Structure formats: C-alpha cells, structure tokens
C-alpha cells in the first residue's frame, strides 16, 4: 500500500528548487559519489569519503571532515531508487535494512530524506523532504539557543492547522 506523504510542520523540512539543468544531471549529482563529494556537505565541512550502493537496502555512507580535523561518519540505507525520479534513504536503518543502534547520526538527529525530481520546462524541479524523529539526546543541546528565530515554524503550523476558522 502506498501511504501518501503527510507533512508534520514541527518535524519536517520541505524544500523545492527549480534549476536550469536537465533532470538526468540532477539525478547524477544526487547519486554519484564523485559528484556528491563536490557539494553534499555544508561548508566549511567537506565530504572526505562517499560510498553509494544504489538499490533498496544499499549503503549510503559519507564521512564528513571538519575544519579542525573532525571526522563524522554518516551511515544510511536506501529505501527507494527510481532512476531519474525518486530517491529515498534513511539514517534510522543501516545498509541491509538493519536498524541503526545509534542514538543519532554523528550528532545530527536521525532523518529520512525523499528526493523527487521532475522535468520543468528545459530544466528540473526537485523537492527534498527531510523528515525528523522528535529530537533527543545530545544533538538537541548542541543546537538549542543557537538561533533566535521565531515564527517560521509557527506560521506553518497556523497555516496548516485544520479545524478552525478565524472569526
């Protein structure tokens, strides 16, 4: 049974981008280690190692290197691979669908990512959804108090809240 995606605005990020490149190139950038190494890790960190076994149950592993010589391994498992169209992986499972014994993935809370890619004119529209488990453990402390932002998540909540109308 295909369960439709229902966003949870308190735990999910939904990002949509339109780029002026063909869909096959976008797919390649998300799935080839040589390409992933160039962009996947938010700077100033870099992707030191990247392994991709592109099939459901296959390994998606990155080792991120920090500016002070830190090395963080992120191990994930692909769940769905539809070439050129849809890629799903999760850090909650290790390769071979084995449940992860870790509390988080090197300090980043566990997540499932869904990438969908479709042609858009001569270019591509892609959507990245990151679904998080509610935060626990140390990772929460690291980010608390780091940002004074207030409003974006709440605006989303208000917008999506069903069952009431303003009078």
């Amino acid at each position, binding site marked *: 049974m295909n369960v439709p995606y229902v966003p949870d605005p*308190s735990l999910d990020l939904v990002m949509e981008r339109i780029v002026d490149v063909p869909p096959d190139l976008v797919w390649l950038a998300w799935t080839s280690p040589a390409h992933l190494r160039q962009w996947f890790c938010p700077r100033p960190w870099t992707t030191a190692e990247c392994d991709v076994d592109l099939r459901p149950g296959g390994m998606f592993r990155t080792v991120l290197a920090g500016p002070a010589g830190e090395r963080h391994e992120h191990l994930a498992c692909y769940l769905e691979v539809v070439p050129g169209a849809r890629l799903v992986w999760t850090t909650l499972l290790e390769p071979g669908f084995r449940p992860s014994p870790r509390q988080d993935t090197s300090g980043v809370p566990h997540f499932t990512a869904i990438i969908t890619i479709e042609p858009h004119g001569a270019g591509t529209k892609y959507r990245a959804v990151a679904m998080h488990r509610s935060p626990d453990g140390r990772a929460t402390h690291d980010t608390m108090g780091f940002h004074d932002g207030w409003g974006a998540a709440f605006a989303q*909540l208000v917008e999506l809240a069903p069952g009431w109308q303003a009078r």
Partner: protein
Amino acid sequence: MPNQTQQLTAVFSALADPTRRAVLARLSAGPCATSELSRRFPMALPSFTQHLGVLEASGLVTSRKVGRVRTYTLAPKKLQAAETWLAARRTEWASRLDQLDSYLTTLRKERS
C-alpha cells in the same frame, strides 16, 4: 540539561497531533476559554480536555481558572525551543541545496 531534552520531547509529542496544532493556532489569536475552544472541535469534551491537558503539560499553553471559567493562553517560549531546533536543520539543508545548485550550474557549463 537532561530535563531540557525531556521538555523538548514533550513539546514535539504535543505538536504531533493536528487537533492540538489547531488549538495552538486558535490561541495565537489570543486567550480563549475551554467552552469556546471546545465548540470549534467536533469531539467529545473529555477527549478534548485531554488534548488541552497534553498541551499544558508540555508547557506550550498555560491556563487560569477564574470562577468556573478556565482560560487558556499560548506560552510561546516552549514553541520557540522547537522552532530553534528545526531552524538549525533548515539552515543545514538550505546550505546543502545552495551548494548543489551552484555545482549543477558548473556541471552544465562544463558539458556545453
């Protein structure tokens, strides 16, 4: 500090329910009495009261009883903690996708 984690977990479980999110949305417009709030939701009063209890336990709302009327008020501080957590994740993904987009542009130039 572990206490802080527990509190944040309570906030997230409170937010996981659409009825409770709708109550928060209503309270963002201002304080509201139980009777008026419950009129907006098609469910039995005991179930609705339970939702209000979860919200109050999480710290997302506070309530005050004056005479026989209990009034609920939004407590934005707790919601802010949840927002802060997600904002950090958003920053990370946004910077990742920015890098992808500029990398894709480079690739396209190389290929043409």
